[in-house]
C-alpha cells in the first residue's frame, strides 16, 4: 500500500501536470479561434470572414437538447456565423456568471437572461439597445406578444426580447372534480368551495388535499394582482399591497385554506417536484404550477388532465416567468449577434420548433398564427389555455432591486406559511425591509 501510494503520487504528478498543460494548450487554441476569426489556422480556404458567437443559456435536460438542436439549425443555415451555445447553470447561476464575465471582459455576445434580472443588467448599461436593429430588419415591436414584453424595456430602450417564457396556470385533475360533481373553479370563492369539498381526511390525517402550489414568490404575487394590488407601488418606493390591505387578504386566504386541508403548502426544498408528484398520484386535485410542466404532467398522469386560468379575485391576473434573450453591449460581432437573435425570434426554423416541443409560450404573432401552433393547440388544448391566459399577464415586480427584495419576500412567506407567524406583523416587517432596500 505504501509503495503503491507513493507511486501513485509520483505518477499523478507527472501525468496530471502534463495533461493539464496539454489541455490548456487545446483550450487556448479554441479561445483564439473564438476571439480572432482571421486566425490563419482557422479558415484554410474560405474567403468570407467567419465569426464565432458565444451564446450562454440556462437550459438543461431535454430543453437543453432542444436548444442545442436550434443552434445546430442556425449554424447549418449560416455559412459565415458559428454560434457556440454553452449551458451556464440555472437562471441564477447564469446571472452570477454574467456578472463576473462582464467584469473580466469575457462576456458572451448573446445570453439568455431570466426576465426578472433584465432590469439589473440594463441598469448597469451592459445590454445593447435592440431598437435600431429591429428597425433595420423591418420588424415591428407589435409583432411580439404584449403580455411577454413587460421586462423588455428599460428607460425606453429595448434591452431584451422574449425567448423561453412561461406563466403560472391551474392544473386540474378533472376526474376527481367530476366524481364530486364540481366545475373547474374560476374565482377564489369557487376554488375555496371546490378545494374544501375535495379534502379527504382519514383517522385524523389528510390523505387528499384540495390544491397546492410550489414554494415560490410567483403564486402569492399572482394572487396579489388578482386582488388588484401590485408588488411594487407605482413610483417603486415601496410595496403596493400593504396599505390597501391586499397582502393581508392574500395571506389570510392562504392560511384559511391551509387550515382546513384545502391547501397543501409543500416544504421549501424541491417543492415543485413534491407538488407534481402528489398531483400525479391524486393526493392533490389541483395545482398552481408553471406552464412549463404541462408536457411532463400530460405524459405522466392517468386521469383526465386539463388546465385553466388561475382563479380570479377581482380580476384575472397572472405574472410571467422564464427567460428573455439579450445582446451584450460589449459584443464585437453585433451584426452577427443580431442575426442570431432575429433568426430565433422570427424565423420559422428558429425558436418555433423549440417552443412547440418544450411547452414554453409562443411569443410572436407569426408563431401564434403558424400552422404548427394551430395543429398543436387542436391536439393539446391545455397548451392553448396557457397562451390565452397571457391576455391577463401583468408583471408588477420589475425593478432593479427585485432580486434583493425577493429574498425578504421569501422570508415573509416562510414566516406566514410554515411558522404561522402573525400576518400583519410579518407584513409590517417585510414592508420596512423592502422600503429600506428600495430607498438605497
Amino acid at each position, binding site marked *: *500500500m*505504501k509503495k503503491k*501510494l*507513493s507511486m501513485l*503520487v509520483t505518477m*499523478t*504528478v507527472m*501525468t*496530471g501536470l502534463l*495533461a*493539464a498543460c496539454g*489541455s*490548456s494548450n*487545446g*483550450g*487556448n487554441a*479554441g*479561445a483564439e479561434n473564438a476571439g480572432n476569426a482571421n486566425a490563419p489556422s482557422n479558415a484554410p480556404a474560405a474567403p468570407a470572414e467567419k465569426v464565432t458567437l*458565444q451564446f*450562454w443559456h*440556462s*437550459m*438543461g*435536460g*431535454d*430543453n*437543453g*437538447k432542444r436548444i442545442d438542436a436550434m443552434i445546430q439549425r442556425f449554424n447549418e443555415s449560416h455559412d459565415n456565423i458559428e454560434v457556440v451555445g*454553452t*449551458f*451556464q*447553470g*440555472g*437562471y441564477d447561476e447564469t446571472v452570477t*456568471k454574467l456578472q*463576473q*464575465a462582464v*467584469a*473580466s471582459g*469575457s462576456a458572451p455576445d448573446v445570453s439568455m437572461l431570466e426576465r426578472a434580472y433584465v432590469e439589473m443588467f440594463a441598469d448597469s448599461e451592459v445590454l445593447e439597445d435592440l431598437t435600431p436593429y429591429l428597425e433595420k430588419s423591418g420588424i415591428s415591436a407589435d409583432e411580439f406578444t404584449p403580455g411577454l414584453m413587460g421586462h423588455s424595456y428599460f428607460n425606453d430602450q429595448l434591452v431584451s426580447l422574449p425567448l423561453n417564457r*412561461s406563466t403560472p396556470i391551474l392544473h386540474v385533475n378533472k376526474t376527481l372534480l367530476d366524481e364530486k360533481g364540481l366545475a373547474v373553479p374560476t374565482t377564489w370563492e369557487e376554488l375555496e368551495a371546490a378545494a374544501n369539498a375535495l379534502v379527504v381526511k382519514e383517522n385524523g390525517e389528510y390523505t387528499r388535499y384540495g390544491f397546492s402550489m410550489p414554494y415560490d414568490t410567483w403564486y402569492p404575487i399572482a394572487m396579489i394582482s388578482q386582488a388588484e394590488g401590485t408588488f411594487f407601488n407605482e413610483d417603486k418606493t415601496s410595496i403596493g399591497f400593504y396599505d390597501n390591505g391586499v397582502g393581508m387578504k392574500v395571506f389570510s386566504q392562504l392560511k384559511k385554506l391551509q387550515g382546513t386541508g384545502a391547501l397543501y403548502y409543500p416544504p421549501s426544498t424541491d417543492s*415543485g*417536484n*413534491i407538488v407534481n*408528484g*402528489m398531483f*400525479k*398520484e391524486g393526493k392533490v386535485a389541483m395545482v398552481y404550477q*408553471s406552464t*412549463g*410542466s404541462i*408536457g*411532463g*404532467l400530460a*405524459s*405522466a398522469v392517468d386521469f383526465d388532465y386539463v388546465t385553466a386560468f388561475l382563479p380570479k379575485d377581482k380580476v384575472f391576473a397572472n405574472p410571467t*416567468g*422564464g427567460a428573455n434573450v439579450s445582446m451584450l453591449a460589449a459584443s464585437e460581432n453585433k451584426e452577427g449577434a443580431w442575426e442570431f437573435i432575429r433568426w430565433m425570434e422570427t424565423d420559422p426554423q428558429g425558436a418555433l420548433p423549440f417552443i412547440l416541443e*418544450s*411547452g414554453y409560450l409562443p411569443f410572436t404573432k407569426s408563431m401564434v398564427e403558424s400552422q404548427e401552433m394551430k395543429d398543436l393547440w387542436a391536439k393539446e388544448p391545455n397548451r392553448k389555455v396557457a397562451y390565452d391566459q397571457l391576455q391577463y399577464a401583468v408583471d408588477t415586480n420589475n425593478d432593479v432591486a427585485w432580486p434583493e427584495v425577493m429574498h425578504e419576500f421569501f422570508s415573509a412567506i416562510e414566516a406566514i406559511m410554515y411558522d404561522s407567524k402573525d400576518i400583519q406583523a410579518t407584513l409590517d416587517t417585510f414592508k420596512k425591509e423592502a422600503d429600506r432596500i428600495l430607498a438605497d
Partner: protein
Amino acid sequence: MTKAWRYTGLTLGYLLKTAILIVFVFPFLWMLSTSLQTYRETLSYPPTLVPAMPQWINFAEAMSAGPFLTYFKNSAIVTLSIIAIQLLVMIPAAYAFAKYKFPGKNILFSLVLLAFMIPGQVTFIPVYLMMADWGIAKTLLPQIIPFMSNAFGIFLLRQYFMQIPEEIVEAARLDNAGEFKIMRKIMVPMSMPALATIALFSFVSHWNDYFWPLIMTDAEAIRPLTLGIAMLRETEGISNWHIIMAGNVVLVIPILLVYLFCSKQIVKAFVYSGIK
C-alpha cells in the same frame, strides 16, 4: 446476570450500528433505485423503493446527453493534479512547521490557519479576474492553481509529524541523511494514514466540487463531471430524476472505489493519533 447484560449490550450495539448504517446507506440506495426507474415511477407518491423493471438504459441516456468522456477526463486531471501538488507542498511545509525552529514560525503558521478559515465564496471574484487577466481562463488551470496548497492538510500533517519522536530524526541526521531523505524515508512512511486521509478528503471535495468549476469555466471542453450532471436538470418544468440519478451514480463510483482502498488507512489515522 452479567452474561444477560452483556448480550443486551451487544444487541443494543448492533441495533444502533444498523440504525446508523441505514441512515448513511439509505440515500445511496435511493439514488441507485431512482437511477433504475422509469420517468413515471420517479413521480410516484409515495415513492417506490424497488424499481418494477430496472432501466439500465437510463445510464446510456445520461452519458449520451453531453461529452461525458471529456467531463470525466477533466475531473480526473483536475482532482489528481490537485492531490499531487498538495502533497508536494504540504509535506515539506508541515515538516518545517513541526520540526524546525525559525523566527516568524508562529506568524507563518497563523497565516496558514487563516487561509484555512477563509471560504472560497469570499475570494472567487478576484481570483477569477486574476485568472482571466493571466489569460488562462480557458484552461483547466483555474480549477487547479487556487488549491495547490491545502491549509487544513498542513495543519493536520504538522500535528502528525510532531508525534514522531525527535530521536528518530536526529538518528537519521547522524547517519548523514539530508532533509529530503528524512522526509521521504521517515516522515512520509510513518504518517501514511494521515496522508491517505488528507488525500481522500481532498479527492472527495474536489471531485464533487460544483461551485468553483461553475464559476471558473465558460466552455464545455474544460468542464468537470459535476457540471455535466447539473446540465441534466431541467431549469423549469419536471426534471428527469431517473437520468440525473444515473449520472450521480457514475459520479460517486470513483469515490466509493477510492474509499474502499483507503478506508483501512483512515481508520488507522484516527486510532494512531488517539494513542499518542
